[in-house]
């Protein structure tokens, strides 16, 4: 110890004097620091400009939306749409409830084609030999060449997709009449030509029937994806569900059998799905025919189907999606035998949606290749991309003296033509469609053309030196024809105004003359020999279809309902086939086929698809479109990010190389091909990794092999007991205080799994309503999709049955929300109307809420996402915040719509009515699967559903008490006939 003390005494004097900073200095310093900090904190107010109209257009009030009824230009189905305009630009497309065709529904493509309007890659000006120019120059140039052609009687051909606008047809006819050798050829990339040809043979009229799914009790569909992509999916979905009504004891529930090789959307909704190779389609129909005629088939299923069809004579329907005349003749014959013509098939007031003629197309192709054509006009269609041998035509078309494309962008075809006279986007122009005999759907421009474009009618009129605006042309046409076909209104102006307001006109058109059914065309159809060769199916995807909208990132990123894969096309094949070829998911395979004695090959990654027929491979059309290379940099950029498409490559590959003409129509099924494995690998990105409700075998806890997520039953069982298939109800004493009182409204939702077809229209609707960004392939592969509503898809495969169940999944707005308790900053809290609010500007992004969400429906902004280029940003909804990086977001039940509706009701001093508020997902659902409403309103549609015995809640046992419920999925799989 001594030592220690000595030290102390030595040092003491030195240690006592004060050190460094004393209190006063400290205070002084901190004083100044504080003052400095204060100054630093101060800031000048952000100067924002408010620039009013100089002269205000009287229909526009800043901050208010205006709505216009028009017609969808997404595909030939021509559904009725309503556009929501804000400050002079459309920001949302929705189904037009009063429209006779679509009846308020709208598919994913229809809703997404709004984004195409703001596509910065659309042509800004007409181009001559690839150089931009002005209309006057291009017109004079074209007119001069046309004169020469007129003088030396050159052959003029006008090639287009089906044109269902009488005005356009007449204008074209008038234009072509000026030439001695002229013809208008129509074709469709997704051709149904064989159906029309078959009816020409059997009924002497080349029309596309109007299929009445609403009148059917038994549907047999051979490879016709009528709920997904075939002819008029929205219309058919609406009608289909009119035949499937579950209402206790007065239910009626049609039986639908799907015969197909690939798993289509329709197949996954079928009550019975028979998986056979395309090689066997013909024989199947043939056997069905003979059996119905009274014979007997070796296959039990055929006999069974025949029995059911016969039992529902006049109330049954056989549709065939195979574009082959023989199969179509057979199905016509069957429908004739079942006396469905005049009942479930209407050819007296036929559909006008498709009238393409493959035989004429084939003729034209040979003409072009032989160089006989001196002028070729190509209107909305991309033949070089989507017809057989299309690519080979390039050099021939370039050789044609006068080739004109009306394409709105530079695509495979238009880049080969001399002139491009860009047509307006369908939302920019006046147009009309005769969708069905007597039903005219009108298109009005909802904004000024964004580009220096011109409508076809105006172009043709300009070249005929009879300048006329599309508006006048159509108005005159209606005055002279449509107006005269109706009796109700005798003042044209009134009639016209009403039509423009409604977006359509329903008039009395003369009945189409039909001959008696003639059988002799079926004489030389015989059973073909069974082959077991590898077959190739070329099918359109829900989102991309024939490729018309391949430039639309919303659609490219829309998960395929079945495979859940985005941004690519791929080779689907069954487990067995995969084992046989010893390929695994993502292995690149090479498909080889002999087409017109020439060897064609295509390399694509493999996707192993449950439920597919063995020895069949399926590839989606519409991929590998020119212009998709621009998606290389879509999505966030950081050093581990992979590009959506590799530099200079395209999204997917074009499978049209395998198209060919068979029996005079384009064949999408290739009955003979070979598939070989390559060394390469290619990663496909899917939004779902585990595909079944069955737990993996080696992890199964006894007694809980299947997760109780989807209630499922058969129609038979349902008739016996309306609550059939229900899970055991879980009634828990809540340890929570009843803290939430819902005195005013209590919003909720009920989704009918029987109705939901999985078409994914709701996903796009939500994306467009709520400013949800596209995140690119790599982010999806990392399972970071941003969509607020996703459609969970579960496969169920027992030894010989395969079924698919769809379950739309969005925020459940739980009354006991697990997310709410854990958020440290009150960024997600319950509101007095039962909504689970997410407050972006309060969120600090701990992701705790998302972890604690049993439904995993919350979405985190991992990066600052691009919302497209400057042009595409115009599509953003001004009523919804664009979320910044690091913020959690999720379904809000479209709170902006709720608030708007409440405010309007309040202003008008009226109470909210049931149905005043429709979230984006509900509004356009073609199947009416989604119902949103007020649980406190006992008469609301929602309350009705909640009192239904089928109503249940997912994960009720967790005690979250969600506001979203589901209705048991009912299938007619035990094939009960209607009661």
């Amino acid at each position, binding site marked *: 110890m001594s030592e220690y003390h000595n030290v102390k005494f030595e040092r003491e004097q030195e240690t006592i004097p004060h050190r460094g900073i004393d209190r006063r200095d400290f205070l002084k310093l901190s004083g100044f620091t504080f003052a*400095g900090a204060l100054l630093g904190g101060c800031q000048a107010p952000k100067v924002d400009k408010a620039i009013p109209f*100089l002269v205000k257009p009287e229909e526009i009030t800043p901050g208010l939306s205006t709505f216009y009824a028009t017609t969808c230009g997404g595909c030939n189905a021509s559904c009725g749409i309503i556009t929501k305009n804000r400050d002079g630009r459309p920001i949302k497309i929705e189904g037009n409830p009063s429209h006779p065709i679509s009846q308020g529904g709208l598919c994913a493509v229809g809703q997404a084609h709004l984004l195409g309007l703001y596509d910065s890659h659309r042509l800004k000006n007409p181009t001559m030999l690839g150089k931009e120019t002005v209309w006057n120059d291009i017109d004079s140039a074209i007119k001069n060449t046309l004169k020469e052609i007129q003088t030396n009687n050159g052959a003029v051909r006008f090639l287009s997709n089906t044109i269902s606008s009488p005005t356009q047809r007449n204008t074209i006819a008038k234009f072509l009449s000026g030439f001695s050798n002229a013809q208008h050829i129509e074709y469709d990339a997704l051709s149904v030509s064989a159906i029309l040809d078959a009816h020409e043979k059997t009924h002497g009229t080349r029309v596309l029937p109007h299929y009445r799914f609403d009148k059917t009790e038994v549907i047999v569909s051979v490879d016709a994806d009528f709920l997904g992509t075939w002819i008029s999916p929205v219309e058919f979905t609406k009608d289909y569900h009119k035949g499937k009504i579950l209402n206790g004891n007065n239910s009626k529930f049609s039986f639908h059998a799907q015969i197909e090789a690939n798993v289509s959307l329709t197949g996954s909704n079928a009550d019975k799905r028979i998986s056979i190779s395309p090689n066997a389609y013909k024989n199947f129909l043939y056997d069905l025919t003979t059996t119905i005629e009274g014979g007997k088939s070796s296959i039990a299923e055929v006999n069974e189907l025949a029995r059911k069809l016969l039992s529902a004579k006049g109330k049954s329907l056989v549709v065939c999606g195979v574009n082959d005349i023989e199969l179509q003749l057979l199905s016509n014959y069957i429908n004739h035998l079942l006396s469905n013509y005049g009942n479930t098939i209407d050819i007296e007031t036929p559909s006008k949606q498709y009238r393409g003629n493959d035989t004429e197309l084939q003729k034209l192709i040979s003409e072009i290749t032989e160089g006989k054509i001196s002028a070729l006009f190509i209107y909305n269609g991309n033949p070089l991309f989507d017809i057989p041998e299309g690519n080979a035509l390039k050099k021939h078309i370039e050789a044609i003296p006068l080739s004109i494309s009306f394409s709105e962008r530079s695509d495979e075809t238009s880049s080969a033509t001399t002139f491009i006279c860009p047509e307006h986007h369908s939302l920019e122009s006046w147009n009309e469609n005769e969708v069905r005999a007597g039903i005219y759907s009108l298109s009005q421009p909802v904004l000024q053309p964004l580009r220096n474009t011109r409508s076809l009618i105006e172009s043709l009129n300009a070249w005929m030196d009879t300048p006329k605006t599309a508006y006048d042309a159509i108005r005159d046409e209606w005055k002279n024809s449509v107006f005269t076909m109706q009796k109700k209104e005798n003042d044209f102006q009134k009639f016209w105004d009403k039509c423009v307001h409604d977006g359509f006109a329903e008039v009395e058109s003369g009945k189409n003359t039909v001959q008696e059914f003639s059988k002799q065309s079926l004489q030389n159809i015989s059973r073909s020999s069974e082959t077991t060769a590898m077959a190739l199916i070329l099918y359109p995807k829900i989102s991309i279809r024939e490729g018309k909208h391949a430039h639309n990132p919303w659609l490219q990123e829309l998960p395929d309902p079945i495979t859940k894969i985005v941004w690519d096309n791929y080779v689907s094949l069954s487990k067995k086939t995969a084992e046989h070829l010893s390929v695994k998911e993502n292995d690149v395979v090479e498909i080889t086929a002999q087409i017109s004695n020439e060897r064609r090959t295509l390399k694509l990654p493999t996707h192993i698809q449950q439920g597919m027929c063995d020895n069949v491979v399926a590839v989606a059309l519409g991929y590998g479109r020119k212009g998709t290379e621009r998606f290389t940099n879509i999505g966030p950029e950081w050093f581990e990010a992979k590009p959506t498409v590799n530099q200079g490559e395209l999204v997917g590959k074009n499978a049209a190389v395998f198209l060919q003409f068979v029996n005079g129509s384009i064949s999408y099924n290739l009955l003979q091909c070979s598939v070989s494995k390559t060394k390469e690998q290619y990663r496909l990105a899917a939004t779902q990794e585990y595909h079944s409700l069955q737990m993996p075998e080696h992890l199964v806890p006894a007694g809980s092999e299947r997760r109780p997520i989807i209630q499922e039953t058969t129609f038979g069982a349902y008739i016996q007991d309306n609550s059939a298939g229900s899970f055991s109800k879980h009634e828990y004493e809540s340890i929570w205080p009843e803290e939430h009182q819902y005195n005013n409204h209590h919003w909720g939702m009920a989704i009918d799994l029987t109705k939901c077809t999985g078409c994914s229209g709701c996903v796009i609707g939500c994306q467009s309503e709520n400013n949800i960004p596209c995140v690119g392939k790599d982010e999806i592969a990392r399972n970071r999709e941003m969509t607020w509503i996703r459609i969970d898809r579960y496969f169920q495969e027992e030894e010989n049955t395969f079924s698919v169940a769809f379950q739309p999944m969005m925020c459940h707005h739980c009354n006991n929300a697990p997310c709410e308790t854990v958020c440290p900053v009150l960024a997600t809290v319950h509101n007095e109307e039962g909504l689970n*609010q997410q407050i972006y500007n309060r969120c600090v992004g701990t992701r705790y809420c998302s972890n604690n969400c049993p439904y995993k429906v919350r979405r985190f902004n991992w990066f600052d996402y691009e919302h497209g280029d400057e042009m595409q940003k115009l599509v953003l909804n001004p*009523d919804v915040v664009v979320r910044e990086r690091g913020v959690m977001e999720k379904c809000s039940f479209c709170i902006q719509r709720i*608030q708007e509706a409440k*405010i309007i009701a309040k202003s008008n001093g009226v109470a909210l009515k049931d149905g005043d508020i429709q979230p984006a997902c509900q509004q356009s659902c073609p199947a009416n699967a989604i119902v949103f409403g007020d649980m406190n309103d006992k008469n609301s549609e929602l309350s009705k559903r909640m009192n239904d015995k089928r109503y249940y809640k997912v994960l009720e046992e967790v005690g979250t008490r969600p506001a979203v419920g589901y209705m048991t999925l009912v299938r007619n799989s035990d094939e009960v006939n209607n009661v």
Partner: protein
Amino acid sequence: MLLKSPITTVFLVVGLLLSILIFYNSYSVNYRIPGNNEGYEPVQPIAYSHRLHAGELGIPCLSCHFGAEKSRNAGVPSASVCMNCHKFVTALFANVRAEDELAEKEKRKPQRIISSELKKIYSSLALNDELLPNPSLKQTPIEWKKVYNVPDFVYFDHRPHVNAGVQCQTCHGAVETMERIRQVGNLSMGWCVNCHRDVNKNGVNNKKVYASTDCTTCHY
């Protein structure tokens, strides 16, 4: 010790004053915490006087800001709205009268007097002195400075407030007394919420109302 020396103190004080000076010039409002622009009173492109129009002439707010009733935004009136009156009124009455008298004396037709501020409207509409469209001129929109500016993540809607009978002055202050519009109230969340709480108790001019304090009333 350096800190002990008075020089340091003096130096720091001077520095502080200097910086205050510098900051002050760059600001049109006094210092307050970021985002709070209470008292913001920018100079507008046209010296429009609310005192004159709303105060002396007693023009009701909604006759120009008609948007407030039916839309989310009250809206800055378009020049065409101004022209409803200023087609005829081109200057202060006094000035016009003076010109007339002068003309009386000088025995000549009185010429049209156009006040310098109104001239700006006419020129923005590309009108000549006879107030007729002048094709050679180009229409140029008027760029007003926004005074009441809420952040992007706030969805304020005029309709429910106006229709509930809330006086414009409740939030915008006695506009009819202001030459130039000045921001009254700091537009902080508390400022909004406390009023909502208050009216739920006391109502709006003795009328019972319900103003929700849910987050999603303003944030979505």
